[in-house]
């Protein structure tokens, strides 16, 4: 039964099939909710704050440090990292030492050889821009030292670097300590319980960092025993075997080289509180090198060397409350959170000094809710079109480099690009003689629900993320992407025939975000995929005006068609993906292959506000699956 608040004389708009038109009509002529306009408490009004003005390009872009390896003799490992979780009670806290609930899967195949630690805690007051007050609301992680006053938590969090190495065991454990503050969270947002997801990695559920898993029965209903998120005073050992997907196939103990992953990130996934915790800063890069993408431009595929010329760049947008000078977040806003200050690696609109040579830029949209279309612009000649090379999409190298004029990124998507600052600025280049270039987001977005699909004019200062300041020519041993025709042997695996087709409608009902009309429940596993099989998933978004970046844990997929049109082989979407940008009224056909691990994983919208407000489901991977077409 539906009832309307306010003016009952406008029933026709409820039946108007053209939803967006109806909204416009409603706003223009009909006081649909007559009371709301008189109420000073409306969320619409509360959101209408504007951050204080800032002058762009005053500070250099920081590069996040790399988490060092530690020996097992390090104090961080006073309790050895065991396959079985350390559930002994810590007398100091009264709860188990470790938050993990299950043993590491397949650990005996590749016992961990490398060890990292991180302490999660409050970030001491930190400047994000000289015109703004030091920020006191952030949380982050440190480099693993036990004394947080010396080894201070930072955001973006430090980069973790690991390797695949055929024929060798490069497995690792990352021990994460929750040392987040108790009491009222700074700024009034943030939940001091964390589950750290290694986004895009081929993880077993116990090391995936998901939200929850009901298959542990009654234990899963007990916060102290649910085995995913953990509390201040606890640690959690994440085990990554550093083998590609397919490693349980006896013929390929190192996995399938075509399943190589490279540009990953890690972030909080606390059920129902991911948005506020990621916004608080719990996000960082995890890079994986390998025998071909070596991190050294003199070897393998000869991509620009890490870390000098291979630059991770993490984007977020903050809203700074002018009354407090601090990053603000509204826990009661379910549409999505937009900021009006772009940060790159923790600074508002920084500059970055580059040499005239090739750089690999790893671009990451950490959200919470913004979609980007990024262009390189010469601010002194805005009409110039400046192409560059896209070499990766999400965690994966593509089949071959693609020359592009822009990069589109939804939340959690990554784009690896190569920019040749020498060629671009050389005589005859796209921006001859340019001394600076802007990386700018021209995609207009006015609310948290999705972009307006309109591009702003080039060289608009407010749209700029970072200014590249171009210096002298520097030696460059990297290979020109124009001459790379393939990243073989990292090629695309063949698409196998799906044994099941399932439909997922991402929509809104009952004031919440839903999948197939049903909101997230930690109590229900909605479908089960048979291990070592391939499935076809049809994602649809019939609700006009909203966009959703859909992410599933554990499995990658191939976008084989979008709105019925097969993905062209020269498209940047022609490759493996773990996030699908599902735009207004779109339908995407996505083929996934599921190997190795068993257990429970989520699928969800990665607009983290939508995710927290129930646009998520749990699925399982087991030896016997189901064929439910509408889970």
């Amino acid at each position, binding site marked *: *039964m539906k*009832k309307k608040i306010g003016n009952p004389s406008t029933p026709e708009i409820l039946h108007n099939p053209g939803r967006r038109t109806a909204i416009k009509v409603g706003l223009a002529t009909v006081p649909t909710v007559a009371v709301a306009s008189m109420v000073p408490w409306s969320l619409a009004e509360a959101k209408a704050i504007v951050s204080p003005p800032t002058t762009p390009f005053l500070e250099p872009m920081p590069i996040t440090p790399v988490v060092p390896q530690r020996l097992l003799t390090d104090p961080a490992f006073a309790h050895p990292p065991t396959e079985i979780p350390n559930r002994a009670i810590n007398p100091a806290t009264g709860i188990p030492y470790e938050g993990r609930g299950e043993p590491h899967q397949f650990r005996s195949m590749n016992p961990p050889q490398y060890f990292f630690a991180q302490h999660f805690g409050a970030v001491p007051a930190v400047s994000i821009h000289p015109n703004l007050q030091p920020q006191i609301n952030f949380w982050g992680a440190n480099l693993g030292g036990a004394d947080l006053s010396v080894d201070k938590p930072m955001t973006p969090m430090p980069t973790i670097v690991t390797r695949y190495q055929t024929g060798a065991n490069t497995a690792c454990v990352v021990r994460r300590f929750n040392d987040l503050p108790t009491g009222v969270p700074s700024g*009034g947002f943030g939940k001091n319980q964390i589950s750290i997801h290694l986004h895009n990695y081929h993880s077993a559920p116990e090391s995936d960092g998901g939200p929850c898993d009901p298959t542990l029965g009654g234990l899963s209903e007990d916060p102290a025993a649910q085995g995913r998120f953990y509390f201040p005073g606890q640690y959690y050992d994440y085990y990554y075997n550093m083998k590609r997907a397919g490693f349980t196939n006896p013929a390929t103990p190192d996995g399938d080289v075509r399943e190589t992953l490279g540009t990953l990130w890690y972030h909080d996934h606390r059920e129902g509180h991911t948005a506020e915790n990621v916004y608080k800063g719990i996000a960082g890069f995890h890079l994986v090198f390998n025998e071909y993408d070596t991190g050294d431009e003199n070897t393998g595929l000869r991509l620009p060397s890490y870390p000098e010329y291979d630059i991770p760049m993490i984007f977020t947008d903050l809203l700074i409350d002018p009354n407090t000078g601090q990053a603000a977040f509204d*826990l009661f806003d379910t549409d999505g959170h937009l900021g009006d200050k772009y940060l790159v690696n923790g600074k508002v609109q920084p500059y970055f000094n580059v040499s005239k040579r090739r750089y690999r830029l790893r671009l990451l949209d950490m959200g919470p809710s913004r979609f980007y279309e990024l262009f390189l612009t010469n601010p002194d000649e805005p009409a110039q079109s400046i192409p560059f090379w896209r070499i990766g999409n999400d965690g994966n190298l593509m089949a071959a480099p693609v020359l592009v004029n822009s990069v589109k990124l939804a939340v959690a998507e990554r784009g690896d690009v190569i920019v040749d600052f020498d060629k671009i600025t050389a005589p005859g280049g796209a921006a001859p003689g340019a001394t600076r270039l802007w990386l700018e987001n021209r995609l207009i977005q006015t609310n948290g629900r999705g972009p307006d699909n309109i591009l702003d004019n080039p060289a608009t200062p407010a749209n700029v993320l970072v200014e590249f300041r171009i210096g002298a020519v520097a030696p460059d041993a990297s290979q020109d992407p124009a001459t790379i025709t393939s990243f073989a042997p990292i090629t695309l695996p063949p698409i196998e025939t799906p044994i099941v087709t399932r439909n997922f409608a991402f929509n809104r009902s009952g004031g919440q975000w839903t999948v197939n009309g049903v909101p997230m429940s930690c109590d229900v596993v909605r479908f089960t995929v048979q291990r070592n099989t391939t499935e076809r998933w049809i994602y649809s978004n019939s609700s006009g005006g909203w966009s959703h970046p859909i992410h599933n844990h554990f499995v990658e997929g191939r976008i084989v068609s979008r709105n019925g049109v097969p993905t062209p082989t020269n498209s940047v979407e022609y490759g493996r993906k773990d996030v699908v940008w599902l735009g207004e009224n779109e339908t995407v056909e996505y083929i996934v292959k599921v190997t190795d691990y068993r257990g429970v994983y989520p699928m969800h919208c990665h607009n983290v506000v939508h995710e927290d407000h129930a646009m998520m489901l749990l699925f399982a991977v087991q030896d016997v699956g189901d064929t439910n077409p509408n889970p």
Partner: protein
Amino acid sequence: MMNIEKRSLVFGATAAIFGAGAMLAATSASAAQNPREQFRKKHFPNVPLITHTGESVLLYDDLLKDKKVVINFMYTVCSDTCSLTTQNIKQARVLLGDLAKDINFYSFSLTPLEDDPAALRAYMDMHEVGSTGWTFLTGTPDNIERVRQGLGFVQQDPIEDADISSHASMLRVGNEKMVSWGHASGTTSGRSIARKIRFEFS
């Protein structure tokens, strides 16, 4: 805003004269930085409401301040979503056992002109809710609307917002003192809601 500033100036002057006032002045000056105070100002209009027993209460002072709460919106003639949510909350309270005793459950009417205390009591009787720790509330339309807006049971799309059933399945789960606010979905199940509430108050 002006009043607050004036007040803090007065406190400041007082503090300069009387040392004992210094603490008060500091509190007032840092009010803008106090997350709980900010949250209260933004989201909790302290308006009068009427309980199902006819008692007059204030939203913040009586219902929210210092409390763990689970909040939903409903209306008595709503037959599907509200009934399901009400039944699920009821089951969740049973499953929560002793934990439920520390939690105040509030159900606000979306149709206050029709839902007087007697209508709310009839709804509670029909659903065999039992009144301990679970209060149904109504009020003037203006005040109820302010509460709805403040607590964020709103949709950006005005058409969706005008459909009051769209506000009837979400639950806010919060600890006011700790500025900890999560949400649950009323239509899932009693067990799912109970689990969510345990997680929120862990």
